[in-house]
């Protein structure tokens, strides 16, 4: 009986490991692609051309951010995928913001993710989100999400102070 059961178990384990490795590779490749797209978009702007490289990656990025089954990998501070997401939201060298679709889709995805302090510290995503609350360039709907995220992300840190005082 055991002889029959064990190989199946091992097989399942191996399949899970294969899937995890494939996901890690997918995330790692996407991170590289994002960094290249950011450089390419800045170069395009310098030449007064349309910045479209990041926009082309957007469907892949949002698909990953919105897939609940891979949330652990996406939010792993070591994988640090959110650092690449931060790069997508950053202003370009000429001070302009990335395309509205990038802002809208990423902010909407961020609002659904359970982002904790460790992810915030490793990714720096909070810095760019805070910038969106300060800048006059984003549309009101984007600024509202940015303000809400800053509130949500700071609450556990401020709460800890309350607990400490008690």
């Amino acid at each position, binding site marked *: 009986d055991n002889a029959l059961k064990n190989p199946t178990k091992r097989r399942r384990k191996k399949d899970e490991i294969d899937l995890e490795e494939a996901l890690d590779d997918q995330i790692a490749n996407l991170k590289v692609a994002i960094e290249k797209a950011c450089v390419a978009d800045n170069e395009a702007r310098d030449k007064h051309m349309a910045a479209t490289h990041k926009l082309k990656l957007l469907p892949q990025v949002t698909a990953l951010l919105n897939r609940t089954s891979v949330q652990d990998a996406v939010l792993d501070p070591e994988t640090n995928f959110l650092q690449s997401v931060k790069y997508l939201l950053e202003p370009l060298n000429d*001070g302009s913001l990335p395309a509205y679709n990038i802002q809208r889709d990423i902010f909407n995805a961020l609002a659904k993710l359970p982002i904790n302090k460790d992810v915030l510290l490793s990714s720096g995503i*909070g810095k760019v*989100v805070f*910038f969106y609350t300060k*800048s006059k*360039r984003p549309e009101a709907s984007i600024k509202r999400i940015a303000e809400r995220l*800053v509130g949500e*992300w*700071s609450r556990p840190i*401020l709460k800890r102070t309350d607990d400490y005082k008690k």
Partner: protein
Amino acid sequence: PRDKGLAPGVTGLDEDALEDMEAIFGNGEDYYWALNMEQEESDREREEQ
């Protein structure tokens, strides 16, 4: 001694929390250049009008 206890009460934040807030949201310098460019642009537009 009263002053000592006053600061955290006034801000509602202890030092650790302040450090965390700064580490997470920045100290205002991270994208200062972009906000500065924005300001210069709007000043220029106002002058042109």
